[in-house]
């Protein structure tokens, strides 16, 4: 569990308003904002999000489909990791693949 000192900041992208939901397990694509050579590395996870981040939670910044950073920062608790090589179809909606992977428990 993250403490106040080691809470991490992540960023995600969403297609439309309302794609992120509070308090339930949600599949999310994250990129790591930790400074250094590996900044922006991507991860797929299932997480529970909150609109008011608690001190024990990681932070999640949200960007829109055109890359605009939204003003609200969410709280994020990672429940489990999903595979990097996510089963899905090329040239089709990545978010569908992410949702399917979360449901199938990949």
């Amino acid at each position, binding site marked *: 569990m993250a403490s106040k000192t080691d809470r991490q900041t992540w960023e995600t992208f969403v*297609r439309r308003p309302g794609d992120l939901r509070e308090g339930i397990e949600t599949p999310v694509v994250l990129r790591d904002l930790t400074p250094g050579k590996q900044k*922006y*590395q991507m991860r797929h996870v299932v997480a529970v999000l909150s609109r008011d981040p608690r001190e024990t939670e990681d932070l999640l910044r949200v960007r829109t489909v*055109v890359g605009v950073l939204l003003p609200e920062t969410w709280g994020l608790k990672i429940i489990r990791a999903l595979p*990097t*090589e996510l089963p*899905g179809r*090329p040239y089709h909606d990545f978010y569908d693949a*992410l949702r399917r992977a979360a449901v199938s428990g990949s």
Partner: protein
Amino acid sequence: MFSDTRDFIEALRAAGDLHEIEKEVHWDLELGAVSRLACEKDGPALWFKRITDYPAGITAFVNPMATWRRVAVAFGLPPDASLKEIYAEYEKREGRLIAPVTVAGGPCKEMIQRGADIDLYDFPAPMLHDGDGGRYLGTWDMAVCRDPETNWVNWGMYRFMVYDSLHLTGFPRPTSHLGKVFQDYYVAKNRPMPMALVIGADPISHFTASATYHIGGEEAALAGGLRGAPVELVRCETNDLLVPAHSEIIVECDVLPDCAGLEGPYGEYPGYRTGEMGNGIFCRVSAVTHRKNPILTVDATGYRDDSSTITALTGAIAIKHRLERHGIPVTDVNVPREGAVHLAVIAVKYGGKQMSREILETLTSRRALLSKIFLVEPDVDVYDIGKVLHAFSTKCHPAHGIHVIHYEGRANTLTPCYSQGERALQKGATALYDCTWPGEWSREWEVPVQATFDSIFPDSTKEKVLANWKYYGFKD
């Protein structure tokens, strides 16, 4: 002719078209911002010598051919060659193909990483714009793939984003040549597609990868013809593809037919970051080979980037040839830089409704990258945008002179004016603005006479005025 990026850098230095930055610059936005501003100022190519988080010796060369001067240098022409001269030189050389030759080794094999040694973060892929989906390793690149049914090898310049140390996502459009080969063969058979991402080859090889070139055409042979010497190719380590031996970096990978990843959004060549995101391809890297002290080549993508010269140039010539093959009486074509490869100016001997429809159908039948066409008569210089705008403003009938074709499944999803819904369906339209006089109008009675010095005075008056110009007190 240049065998690699390093030769080209030297030539640009000699021509005064290179700026070397010794001060440390961060790969995270700073490099992109410097490069973008330099591009918008029509500045020189940039060579970043010291990049934050990376050892000395790993450098980045940015905006290789984003001005006509640098295109001229790449072609071995004088740097101040005119646009018309560059177009003419390309048209002259492009019909002469020289097949590549295979060599046993080359500088791109100086360092080889496989398996656990692979780390894409060894290269300073920049975060080019704030809000992009990620760090783009592939911008000034060429993706090599082969159609196993025909053995056709395609080179294409497409964007590729670092996902983690071992994976890339990319967006060769579904209608691109790579997209077609991948979907028609590999996805259909659920097989991974071998691909090599080439970074920092000779400038003409990259030029051809960005060129509008026909399906089945081998860009490697086109590059040889344009260079006047064959491109030397060497075999990859983990697949049978051949890549330019003098390249800086080769990323060998498999494009997976059954995986998805987030790709984009990305500030693209139309000059905007559209909502094209999460609809690309996913690659697993199998090997990385590179030169010692590799130079990462980068296109600071956006308004007036490298595509505004090289894609525009090759697109214009391809449009001209395509129209000629379809019997259209075309005399000249220009794809102006400011139009971001969305606008073409086409001069024809005569226009009209029928001609407009034929041109629209010819240019949008397989994929439709253009969204606007100005159709003008041969007396309008297609390279003079002021004259083109004058013809559009005065000769295009606002009710009868605009022709539109609609299509689905082949539109350019990077076109900024399309909605997210249209993007998802690859749905779009191309408008043609007919700036020619109606063919049925009488030249004697109906066609307006242009009120310019060249058109509205008798020759004798013009000759007298020109002869006496200084006598009237003018200096020039």
